[in-house]
Each structure stands twice: as structure tokens, then as C-alpha cells.
């Protein structure tokens, strides 16, 4: 059911500067996953990652944007053994292995929650509130969790 994707370097979102001028054909639609839920309290955070990994597995390019409560997913030193859940950070760490290389994190959401920027993994990219709006505007289709 899923067509193989053509190489899509030109459609990959890297920053806010250049919108593509090429007309959008169905399978080059750029997909943004907006992750706004904390891990553990609800399965949505996990399911957003499963969606990203599924996209990676079939070679579809998606970008992820961590916003609001979603930034708790990025906290280090998660030890969920005591609550009977799988480690969410371990799953997050698999993103680069699935070729998901656009992982954007809203700086404001982090600072509101006193999350240390030094805690973030290498595969993430901090953006400011203006860039958040641009990322939303730049994508063709959005799934939010």
C-alpha cells in the first residue's frame, strides 16, 4: 500500500529559510509529527514514536517537533522499572537509527519546565518560538499526539 519514496533531499525540512518551489506531488508531502504529551501517564507519547519509526521503516521522511508537555520525553535518567513501563528514552534514542534526522525541540517549552538543555541528545535541534511557527507553516500534513 505504501509506494517507495523517491530520494527527497529537496523536501526535507532543515531550517526555516527555504520553502520548496517544486509543486507538491502526493508522495513528497512533508509530514510533521507534533509531540505534545508526556511519557508514561498516557500511551500517546509512545505511539507518536511508533508512528515515527513506522515512517522510517518504510523510507518516508518525517520531522518531529517536541512541544509543551512533549519535551518531558527528552528528560535524561528515566527509570520506569518501578511503574512497570518500558524506558521511553531508550525508544527515543532509536530515532536516528530509523533515519529520522529532523528532531526539533521547542526551547521555550524546555525552559518553562526547567529542563537542562545539556540533557538533550545529539540528534535533537533546539528552535525558538518563531521557528516553531515556521516549521508548522512549512509542512504539508501534520499528525499531533
Amino acid at each position, binding site marked *: *500500500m505504501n509506494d517507495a519514496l523517491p530520494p527527497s533531499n529537496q523536501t526535507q525540512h532543515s531550517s526555516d529559510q527555504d520553502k520548496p518551489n517544486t509543486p507538491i506531488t*502526493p508522495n513528497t508531502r512533508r509530514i510533521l509529527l507534533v509531540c505534545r504529551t508526556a511519557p508514561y501517564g498516557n*500511551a500517546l507519547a509512545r505511539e507518536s514514536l511508533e*508512528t515515527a519509526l*513506522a515512517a522510517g521503516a*518504510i523510507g518516508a521522511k518525517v520531522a518531529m517537533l517536541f512541544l509543551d508537555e512533549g519535551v518531558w520525553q527528552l528528560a535524561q535518567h528515566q527509570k520506569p522499572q518501578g511503574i512497570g513501563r518500558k524506558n521511553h528514552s531508550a525508544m527515543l534514542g532509536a530515532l536516528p537509527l530509523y533515519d529520522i534526522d529532523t528532531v526539533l525541540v521547542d526551547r521555550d517549552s524546555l525552559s518553562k519546565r526547567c529542563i537542562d538543555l545539556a540533557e538533550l541528545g545529539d540528534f535533537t535541534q533546539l528552535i525558538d518560538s518563531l521557528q516553531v511557527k515556521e516549521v508548522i507553516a512549512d509542512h504539508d*500534513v501534520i499528525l499531533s499526539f
Partner: protein
Amino acid sequence: MKFTIVILGPPYTDQAAETAFRFAQAVLEKKHHIYRLFFYHDGVHNASSLLSLPQDEIQPSQRWRQLIDQYQLEAVVCIASALRRGVLNETEAKRFAKPGNNLMPGFELSGLGDLIDAAQHSDRLITFGPSS
């Protein structure tokens, strides 16, 4: 236009599935097309054949089924979400050695690839998140 509608809320408990159903009806009344209904997260309970509501109330899974049949819609239930929440077809019931199955006819279990495919191939995709 081709729409994909993503339903994340269970019937009865939550309003999201009801809103999604009304939206689907309005899309079809306006002569648009539905590329796919995708039931994910707790939305998979919409596909349960065991929902047993009083006769004077809306029967969620039967109503979806009628819409699916009438317009020949593709209604995909995320298989990973469904298994974890106890919504099984015959094949999965056998695989997990469960005595019964409860996937309403008209719905099919499939993977998250179908959600990505829908995002790529629909003109519009709308998600109805849990209302509570």
C-alpha cells in the same frame, strides 16, 4: 478532495469518535471522498463488535459499519493498538490463543504504514484526539 480521518478516542466514554463520525458524514454529504478512516490509540474500541448499548442509544460500531458499507470506505484499525486493547480479528485471536474475536466486519487490522501512506496520499488529514 480526498480526506483521511484519524480517530484516537473510544466510543461512549469520549466525544472524539462522535465528532469524527459527524465530520465524516459531512465530508461525504459535500461529495468529497474519504481515502481512509484510521483508528488508532483508544480509537480502536470503535471497531469492537461487543459494544452493547441500550437500544435507544447510538450503536457506535454498527453505525461506523453502515457508513463504511454504504460508501465502500477503507477503515483501518491499527493492529498494534488493537491487540494491546483487546480488539482482535480471527487470525490474531488464533495467534494469541484467545477463545474469541471481536473485530466488527467492515474494519480491518493493519499497520502504522497505512497511516503514513494516508498522510502522503490524502489532500487533507484531520485527527480527532481524545476529548478528555
